[in-house]
């Protein structure tokens, strides 16, 4: 109000009224204009509100500050602080016959005139009004007036009388304050502390001071320059904001020595700082000559505790109008609503839009919060898109122990639900790789060679390695003219065919067993095609007939068999012509490619090779059989890139678990989000690695860390060793994400299983021990291993009896030989094995012996309450707290179990169907 700058105030109770004050006080009424026209004389505040001027009060000149009476009043009772230090009560009401009649016009006069800087009504005693004044040499700067005081000194000083000539009622003058504080100082800002009626926080000349009116000689203070605009957070009564120039300081009154934080400094001096009354931790600030209001959201920092923790604050700004803003006021009840006034008294009413925070749930729903509203967006239950969702699938697969079958790796696709051909292909590929690995290594031991390392690197590498090594020679096969194209099956091609699953291990190139297994699974078309590609047309026809007669297959198979038997070498025959056109009408891709193969020109098999509906492994096997080295190489290269681009898991057959494979997996994860499969698949490469390393030499950790390949190894031609692959940051990212996902689902046991699985395959992923039990006497860890190998990850079992490698006495500290503490229940020193659980019903739990054994180990663990420090064997504690809430130590009343926040959580998998 100094000069021309208006201030603005919302009525604390009649929430549709506000006052603008500059040289006079103007009361406005806010109305909604949503359903009505703008009334004549109203001022538009926003798109849907307008203000009507109700009354003007110009009885109080030299206004410096205004404060609205906090109790309910229909009269709009206001206290006005003037330039001479007087505080005048005035009203904007029309009705003067109210209970405040006596109060209106009352003046509170300080001994020495000087500017009144600030006013604050006591929130608890509505009659108390604190006024902060400028400095006077010997006078007090904080005066607390009781507005109902009738006291007027008997002897009015002479000068007072002289100046109050014209004042008809001298009784309206009050010169005796209730309290006087802050002598020989200036008071720039004031606020009452909501904790107690008699606590007042004041920004004095050089310090912030808390005056306690119960003992006025005492005050708490802290020297600071940030003494302006002190204001208490309405939601957190120990938090106070004040400012100086462009800097806002946030104080915690419980730790008053220095600001708990200071906000980023503004280039221009601040003029107003206010906490939002409708939302916690939201502070609005305004600087001079600015058209924006800056908002600081301290939502997530309700209690700054540690010195080091730098709280995060979200800073935003709003620009309610184009002009500079003179002042603003939060609406007392309407959420985040604010009104601003510009120097030329245009006003704008707006609501600060709430930040939206959004979170995906790990189970197919979406939540977002905006202000006090929380929205959940979930798919409808009966919608089968829910079942198709990868999150649902992964959850179910995690429950069915997908990925954890390390003996028969191919079975994992059945655990995954046996519905995804790509997964099926992937797990078969991995199965063959591991299988072949084992086999080739066995072979390698007899005859030196290193095909074993090739296996995990995929067919692409295998094919490459054979390039230029072998010149092809023709076999003469009987029955079909295609024999001219049959390639000599060198070692690499055999290996590739083995990986494709066409032939079994060994040098046997017979596809018979494979055909039988296909027939057994009812894949007649595929079996027939494979038989045909092995140039056994009779077997193909036989298989088709079998399929037709079995009743499960398509009856048309007979027709196809008939057509097939009409095969002729004749180039221009009718059969050939018809087949090459009609084959396209066949629905089954395998039937289709059979005819494509038979009708193709020698050496050009594009109809087979690029039939995308045919499984990649069959096409690759076909290519291995019929393409020349250079053709094969080109084809594999092309197909690999195709697979990588599409993220097709069948391509793993080609890439193996190399960097190429990671690229392929990356596009698969990009497409599906299936980090589960990616994690398990990539972990397999360590299995390949570790087994091969074991076979070759005894690996040490340093060897594993050293990525340079052994001299005899063929790693050089592939992109990276298995360890490189696993350490690829994408792979680590998938693994970490999958672990997080399991945690988010509360599948803690599943996550633990995964971690165990992972650490078996990749020992370097074992976390270091982060928790140690230390001896009360010597302070050293009681872990035996620690003395020799500090900070090596060792299991907890080593703390107990069973894991003790040395035969030292287990009930004493290995460092100082003092006994370990006693278990609160069995009163035996820790370190001894647990006797059977007292009162425990273990008989019904003895189902799984291995599980029981693990449990017994856990029962030996140390456990104790962090609050009362009592504890003992984990098994004993568990059984005790099954029936009790209190600590087992007799005199202790600690409710240990209730303090354990995770103790009452139930892992989700136990409640799953």
């Amino acid at each position, binding site marked *: 109000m100094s000069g021309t700058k208006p201030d603005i105030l919302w009525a604390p109770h009649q929430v549709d009224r506000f006052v603008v004050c500059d040289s006079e006080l103007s009361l406005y009424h806010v109305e909604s204009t949503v359903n009505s026209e703008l009334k004549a004389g109203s001022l538009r505040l926003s798109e849907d509100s307008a203000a009507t001027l109700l009354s003007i009060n110009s009885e109080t000149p030299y206004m410096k500050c205004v404060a609205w009476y906090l109790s309910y009043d229909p009269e709009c009772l206001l206290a006005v602080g003037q330039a001479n230090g007087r505080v005048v009560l005035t009203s904007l009401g029309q009705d003067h016959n109210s209970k405040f009649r006596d109060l209106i016009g009352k003046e509170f006069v300080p001994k020495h*005139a000087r500017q009144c800087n600030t006013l604050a009504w006591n929130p608890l005693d509505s009659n108390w009004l604190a006024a902060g004044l*400028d400095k006077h040499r010997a006078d007090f700067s904080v005066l607390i007036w009781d507005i109902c005081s009738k006291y007027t000194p008997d002897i009015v000083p002479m*000068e007072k009388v002289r*100046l109050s000539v014209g004042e008809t009622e001298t009784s309206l003058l009050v010169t005796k304050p209730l309290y006087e504080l802050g002598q020989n100082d200036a008071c720039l800002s004031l606020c009452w502390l909501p904790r107690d009626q008699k606590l007042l926080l004041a920004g004095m000349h050089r310090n912030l001071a808390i005056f306690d009116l119960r003992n006025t000689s005492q005050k708490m203070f802290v020297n600071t320059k940030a003494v302006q605009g002190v204001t208490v957070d309405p939601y957190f009564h120990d938090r106070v904001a004040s400012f100086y120039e462009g800097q806002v300081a946030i104080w915690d009154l419980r730790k008053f020595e220095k600001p708990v934080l200071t906000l980023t400094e503004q280039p221009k001096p601040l003029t107003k700082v206010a906490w939002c009354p409708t939302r916690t931790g939201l502070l609005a600030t305004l600087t001079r000559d600015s058209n924006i209001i800056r908002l600081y959201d301290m939502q997530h920092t309700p209690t700054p505790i540690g010195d080091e923790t730098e709280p995060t604050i979200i800073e935003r700004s709003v620009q309610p109008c184009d002009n500079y803003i003179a002042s603003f006021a939060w609406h007392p009840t309407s959420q985040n609503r604010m009104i601003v006034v510009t120097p030329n008294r245009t006003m704008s009413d707006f609501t600060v839009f709430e930040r939206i925070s959004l979170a995906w749930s790990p189970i197919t729903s979406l939540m977002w919060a905006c202000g006090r509203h929380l929205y959940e967006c979930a798919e409808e239950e009966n919608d089968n898109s829910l079942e198709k969702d990868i999150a649902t699938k992964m959850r179910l697969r995690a429950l069915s122990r997908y990925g954890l079958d390390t003996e028969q790796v191919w079975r994992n696709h059945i655990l995954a639900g046996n519905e995804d051909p790509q997964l099926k292909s992937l797990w078969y590929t991995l199965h063959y790789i591991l299988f072949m690995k084992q086999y080739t290594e066995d072979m390698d031991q007899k005859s030196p060679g290193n095909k074993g390392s090739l296996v995990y690197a995929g067919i692409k590498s295998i094919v490459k390695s054979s390039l230029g090594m072998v010149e092809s020679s023709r076999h003469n096969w009987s029955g079909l003219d295609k024999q001219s194209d049959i390639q000599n099956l060198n070692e690499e091609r055999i290996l590739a065919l083995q990986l494709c699953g066409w032939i079994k291990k060994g040098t046997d190139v017979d596809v018979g067993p494979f055909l039988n297994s296909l027939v057994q699974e009812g894949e007649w078309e595929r079996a027939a095609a494979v038989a045909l590609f092995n140039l056994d047309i009779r077997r193909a026809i036989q298989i088709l007939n079998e399929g037709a007669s079995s009743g499960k297959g398509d009856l048309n198979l007979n027709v196809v068999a008939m057509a097939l038997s009409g095969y002729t070498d004749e180039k221009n025959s009718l059969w050939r012509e018809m087949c090459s056109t009609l084959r396209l009408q066949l629905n089954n891709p395998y039937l289709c490619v059979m005819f494509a193969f038979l009708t193709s020109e020698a050496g050009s098999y594009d109809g087979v090779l690029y039939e995308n509906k045919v499984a990649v492994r069959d096409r690759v096997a076909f290519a291995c059989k019929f393409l020349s080295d250079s053709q094969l190489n080109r084809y594999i290269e092309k197909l690999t890139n195709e697979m990588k681009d599409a993220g097709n898991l069948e391509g793993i057959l080609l890439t193996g678990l190399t960097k190429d494979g990671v690229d392929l997996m990356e596009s698969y994860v990009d497409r599906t989000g299936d980090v589960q499969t990616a994690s398990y698949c990539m972990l397999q490469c360590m299995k390949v690695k570790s087994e091969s390393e074991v076979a070759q030499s005894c690996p040490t950790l340093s060897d594993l860390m050293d990525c340079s390949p052994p001299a005899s190894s063929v790693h050089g031609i592939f992109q990276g060793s298995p360890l490189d692959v696993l350490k690829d940051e994408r792979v680590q990212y998938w693994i970490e994400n999958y672990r997080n996902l399991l945690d988010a689902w509360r599948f803690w046991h599943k996550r633990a299983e995964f971690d165990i699985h992972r650490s078996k395959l990749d020992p370097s992923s074992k976390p270091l021990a982060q928790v140690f039990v230390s001896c009360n006497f010597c302070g050293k860890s009681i872990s035996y291993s620690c003395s020799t190998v500090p900070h090596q990850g060792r299991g907890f079992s080593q703390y107990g009896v069973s894991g003790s490698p040395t035969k030292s006495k287990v009930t004493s500290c290995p460092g100082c030989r003092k006994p370990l503490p006693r278990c609160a229940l069995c009163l035996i020193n820790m370190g001894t094995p647990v006797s059977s659980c007292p009162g425990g019903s273990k008989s019904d739990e003895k189902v799984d012996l291995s599980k029981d054994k693990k449990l017994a180990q856990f029962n030996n663990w140390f456990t104790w309450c962090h609050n009362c420090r009592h504890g003992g064997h984990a098994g004993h504690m568990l059984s005790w707290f099954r029936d009790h809430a209190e600590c087992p130590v007799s005199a202790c009343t600690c409710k240990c179990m209730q303090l354990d926040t995770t103790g009452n959580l139930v892992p989700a998998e136990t409640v799953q169907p």
Partner: protein
Amino acid sequence: MELHILEHRVRVLSLARPGLWLYTHPLIKLLFLPRRSRCKFFSLTETPEDYTLMVDEEGFKELPPSEFLQVAEATWLVLNVSSPSGAAVQAAGVTKIARSVIAPLAEHHVSVLMLSTYQTDFILVREQDLSVVIHTLAREFDIYREVGGEPVPVARDDSSNGFPRAQHGLSPTVHPIQSPQNRFCVLTLDPETLPAIATTLIDVLFYSHRFPSDLLLTSSSGELWRMVRIGGQPLGFDECGIVAQIAGPLAAADISAYYISTFNFDHALVPEDGIGSVIEVLQRRQDGLGS
């Protein structure tokens, strides 16, 4: 009690009345545009004889030398007494200062200038006397020296060696006093309102020399003051104990006062209704010394 030695290094000047026109521009700049000159301490007192200026060195640079300007040799430091935070219940102000600062300094032969304002009292001492001041007052005050706006405690020097001057009694010279009939009004002004009344102030200071009666916007508390002028001859800057011989008796009689030193004379403002007793008290001082 705390004694703050402020950062300002102040020069005291006298501007002859005929030379005012020459200094109108720098004075307006110092008065109304303090940011332009970086001047932090500025006082202008008009007396019938001259204008006394007390400005810090930044402000001093703004004033061109001329035949009208008379500059006191010394550089002065500004002292300010503030009651400690926490125990502000004792009476403060000029009464307290008279006993605890003015008298001891006078006893140790330190010449002081006083400048009372509405808010506080400033004591100006010569820079060369600072060590004596600190030594003299360290017993009763926590002394802080302001550096860069922050108070820094001054270590108390316990050694009494190197104490330059012997102690003397009060100055035997009793300066005559006069009390004109003018009534004075002491005001305080919010710096933000300064622009609003700037034209009026400029008019009063430089042109009309008459204070308009309607400008007393903050005088509603209504205290009016009478002046007592000390000194028949110009007092000079070397004599000590002048403030003490006025402030002492007034403090003893518990009469509040503003005290303003100028280039030539000292002035005390006392409450209008107390002027009679003040004259009486100060006359008695003369008698007491005379007898």
